[in-house]
């Protein structure tokens, strides 16, 4: 294997290059294969449609971003706290962890209407849905990560007189962090989905609201504008976490 195909592959796997390439392919393919606008409108039409509603789009992006980030942060903090609690209080883990795994499969999005009743038609309702969705993967992965701590190392550190807190901060937490990061990355995309769907149960601002409207009026270019906007938001959020991971959690558990 020479270097150039690998180098080419790396360039193509870069998200920014990927976006440019896909945009170019879109631009060329639609007139080339005479794709019907019903399936994929020309990129110029989608771009023009996006520009014509840029105010709503910007407001929607901001609102959905806010809901996602608030819900995700709360869900991540709670999830890590529960994961740590489960790891150190085994009877809790025995009794509640299987229930957690089961609750994770609950189609929470169906609760949207109920959450809106509880919290009113406020940003809070969407934050709670995003929180619930982010919580489980973070809790489960925190517990799994803490469980992989090597008992021999624990014994070694204990023999040097390490306290429980020192054991946690210097050994267990660093061992668990890569796994926690996996949970966070799963959680952030679920939070985004939760925020978008949460907006369907009655709101006036947000990407989810615009998505619902575009379906009602069958505005296909607008649907594509929103797909691109949701994708951009998802990529930015995920990319931010990936960046943090590369900066601060670069080690791998053996």
């Amino acid at each position, binding site marked *: 294997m020479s270097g150039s*195909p690998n180098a*080419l*592959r790396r360039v*193509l*796997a870069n*998200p920014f*290059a*990927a*976006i440019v*390439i*896909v945009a170019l*392919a879109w631009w060329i393919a639609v007139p080339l294969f005479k794709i019907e606008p*019903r*399936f994929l409108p020309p990129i110029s039409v989608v771009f023009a449609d996006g520009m014509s509603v840029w105010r709503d789009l910007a407001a929607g992006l901001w609102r959905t971003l806010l809901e996602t980030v608030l819900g995700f942060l709360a869900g991540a903090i709670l999830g890590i706290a529960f994961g740590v609690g489960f790891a150190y209080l085994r*009877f809790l883990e*025995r*009794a*509640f962890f*299987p*229930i957690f*795994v*089961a*609750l*994770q*499969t*609950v*189609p929470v*999005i*169906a*609760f949207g*209407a*109920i959450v809106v*009743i*509880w919290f009113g038609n406020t940003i809070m309702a969407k934050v709670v849905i995003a929180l619930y969705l982010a919580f489980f993967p973070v809790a489960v992965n925190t517990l799994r990560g803490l469980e992989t701590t090597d008992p021999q190392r624990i014994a070694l550190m204990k023999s040097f007189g390490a306290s429980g807190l020192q054991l946690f901060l210097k050994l267990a937490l660093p061992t668990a962090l890569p796994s926690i990061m996996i949970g966070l990355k*799963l959680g952030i*995309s679920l939070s*985004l*989905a939760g925020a*978008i*769907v949460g907006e*369907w*149960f009655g709101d006036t601002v947000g990407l989810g609201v615009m*998505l*619902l409207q*575009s*379906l009602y009026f*069958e505005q*296909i270019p607008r*649907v*594509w504008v*929103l*797909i*691109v906007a*949701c*994708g951009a938001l*998802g*990529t930015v959020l*995920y990319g931010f976490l990936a960046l943090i991971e590369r900066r601060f959690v670069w080690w791998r558990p053996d």
Partner: protein
Amino acid sequence: MASRLSFLRSALPVAAALIGLLLLWQLGAMLFDVPTYILPRPGAIVATAIEKAGLLGSGLWITSVEAVLGFFVGTLIGLAAAVLMILAPPLEVALIPLVIVINSVPSIAFVPLVLIWFGLGIGSKVAIGALAVSFVVLLNALAGLKRPEADAINLMRSFGASRLGILWRLQLPAAMPSIVTGLRVGLARSTIAVIVAEMMGAYAGIGQIIYQSTAQVDYLTVWAAVFVASLGSLVLYGVLVAIDRKLVWWR
């Protein structure tokens, strides 16, 4: 005998916790006289689920068929695409940007599109389920298939193994844990995507029941439907865990 005992030992605390939680919920709701529209009592939810068993059962059946069909179609597409990309690397180089870009969009954002394309019937739900699954499976399978080192591949080749033989005997078994992880994430995503699609537009299914009951302010039925849907996805999850143990027994 021993395995039975260990099963009891692990099941007992869970059952106790579950019963405790439900009792707490029931008693709390009775004590504070919480109105049904805010939080119905578990007893009332189960009673509603039994009373409307016919409606909920047929809805669950349709949703399950859609989710399982979508899951299978998506898994097949994802696995086939991964194998093709491994056999023909230029294909991977050409298609991976598209995969990355589409995968970064939450699959529920495609719901309006599939509804417009495939109508309100089963087709659109299968399509969205397949979409939610295929990319996770593809990316996980691709990563797993690449796991065996070049040395091991070269060794098999030096013994005269064909390209497909290497794929079947070395790369696929090595990729199994990663593929199963993809399946598990994919299953959860596809059930959610199918239910969401049903809520936005469908003739039948659990999501449609939830949407209608919400519109009719019939919150007991909403809770009962969520309850039934949770039981359904729990069964699906259990099947997948069992498959995981069977397929990846060597871990």
